[in-house]
């Protein structure tokens, strides 16, 4: 940082020891005086002390989950019931939509068996829900070091056991940066689609049964949930569930029945939503609107189911959904209805 001279491990440790001593409330004037003499003796001491401060600061931004209060009583976890997300997990989004307001922040229910023992390496179980409000993308770091970035109005349920790391994805879009752990596969279940990753980075967007997966780093395997009947025709000769492999730079879409290899959207378009842009390619209008509704303060709805057939290609900025609404009237034979203060209705133009 200061770049003058590298701080030797010995000096860093000396500085760290001072840091721990002077920052406690119990430290007396003698400790502070001794520290003052030390830190002013040599500019390298001061630089090392600053480096300690920096390490301290950064380590404080690493998310720490629920281990903080291991003395608190914890609810026993029903280990064998991860629970399907369909009802429970979607509820907050529904509530928000029904209320027609932007829900703020998150709903996080934590059930940690024993945080202390978990951090001591005995247990790795986590069960929590992370959800974002409309237009409120957020990021979170999971106990295994994996990082999630959730788009607006997106929810996931994190169900980690010692054998696997499972994410139940509600509707919405989430970017995953997975911490490598060959012994615990990282699985995202997004409706009918199951994405398996080991140490990679990818994004999953789900609107109903339409799921699209973009891979930034590494490789992921996609298959369908065996419970979903509509895709059984895709089983291979050996009767295994169909499996599609996507590599870095690839985008795969599941349209509700089949996996489609989408054209490479290009490096610029890739993960564009993480920078506040929503990139659509040949997406049905209802899917586009479902995405935009994660950011729009007024809910957008289609006034006629026939409009679902329209396909939109283009980029929308999450803070200018209104502009897109103006543009869509030019591109498509539609007009906007504003009679309901809480909704914007896209209707066929007559």
């Amino acid at each position, binding site marked *: 940082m200061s770049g003058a001279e590298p*701080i030797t491990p010995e000096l*860093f*440790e000396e500085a*760290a*020891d001072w*840091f*721990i001593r*002077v*920052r*406690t*409330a*119990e430290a007396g*004037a003698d400790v*502070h*005086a001794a*520290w*003052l003499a030390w*830190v*002013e003796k040599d500019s390298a001491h*001061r630089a090392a*002390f*600053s*480096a*300690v*401060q*920096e*390490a*301290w*600061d*950064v*380590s*404080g*931004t*690493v*998310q*720490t*989950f*629920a*281990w*903080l*209060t291991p003395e608190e009583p914890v609810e026993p976890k029903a280990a064998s019931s991860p629970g399907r997300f369909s009802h429970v997990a979607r509820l907050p989004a529904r509530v928000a939509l029904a209320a027609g307001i932007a829900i703020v*922040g*998150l709903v*996080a229910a*934590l059930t940690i068996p024993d945080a*202390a023992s978990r*951090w*001591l*390496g005995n247990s790795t179980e986590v069960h*929590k829900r*992370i959800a974002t409000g409309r237009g409120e993308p*957020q*990021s*979170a*770091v999971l106990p295994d*070091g994996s*990082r999630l970035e959730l788009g607006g109005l997106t929810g996931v349920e994190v169900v980690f056991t010692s054998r696997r790391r499972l994410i139940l994805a509600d509707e919405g879009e989430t970017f995953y*940066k997975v*911490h490598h752990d060959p012994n615990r596969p990282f699985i995202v279940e997004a409706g009918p689609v199951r994405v398996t990753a080991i140490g990679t980075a990818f994004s999953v967007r789900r609107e109903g049964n339409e799921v699209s997966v973009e891979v930034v780093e590494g490789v992921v395997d996609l298959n369908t949930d065996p419970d979903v009947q509509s895709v059984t025709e895709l089983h291979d000769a050996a009767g295994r569930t169909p499996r599609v492999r996507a590599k870095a730079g690839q985008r795969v879409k599941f349209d509700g029945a089949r996996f489609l290899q989408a054209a490479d959207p290009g490096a610029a378009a890739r993960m564009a939503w993480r*920078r506040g842009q929503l990139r659509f390619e040949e997406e049905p209008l209802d899917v586009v609107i479902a995405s935009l509704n994660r950011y729009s303060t007024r809910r957008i709805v289609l006034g006629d189911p026939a409009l679902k057939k329209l396909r939109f290609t283009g980029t929308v900025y999450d803070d200018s959904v209104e502009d897109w609404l103006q543009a869509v009237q030019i591109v498509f034979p539609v007009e906007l209805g504003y009679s309901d203060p809480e909704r914007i209705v896209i209707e066929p133009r007559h």
Partner: protein
Amino acid sequence: MPGRPDVIDPPAAPEAGGTASAAPTLARLFQEHNASLLQLLRARLRSNDEARDVAQEAYVRLLQLDRVDTIGYLRAYLFRTALNLASNRLRHTAMREATYRDPVFDVGADDLSPDRIALAQEELSAVAAVLQDLPPKTRYAFLLHRFTDLKLEEVAKRVGVSDRMVRSYIVQALRRCHEALDVARDAASSRGDPP
């Protein structure tokens, strides 16, 4: 990126009042130890701004002293005053922080520019990985010390080792974080990312 804590403006000397000789002595004190005082305050507080605020206030209080003793006395007084102010401030914010602090999301990262976010994420995941890979007792000791208000002795009791051992664990954890940051930054700068 928080600014470096080592510069604040010296407070204006009082027009009248105080002792005529106080201001120059204090100015010297200020010049000699300001950087150290800010570093010390920063170690106790949560931001450079807070450290600057408290340092300012401590200086103002010193300027209001009726009599000026030796510089040695003043220096001790300055540090004591500043640390007391810091403690008060921590006490006052503790409750608000406790209710405000978001348990899951990374508050504060939002004001960073996209480039910084990308870089910070790399740094963050490097540090998270390092913490994850620490030996269990080291990690537990560090995390307890870092994120709770437990005294060192209490951490030691919980981890089941001596006070000295806990201190050594924390030092090791910080050193690993520092090294991870270095590596992440070297990687970023060799790619030509903005610093």
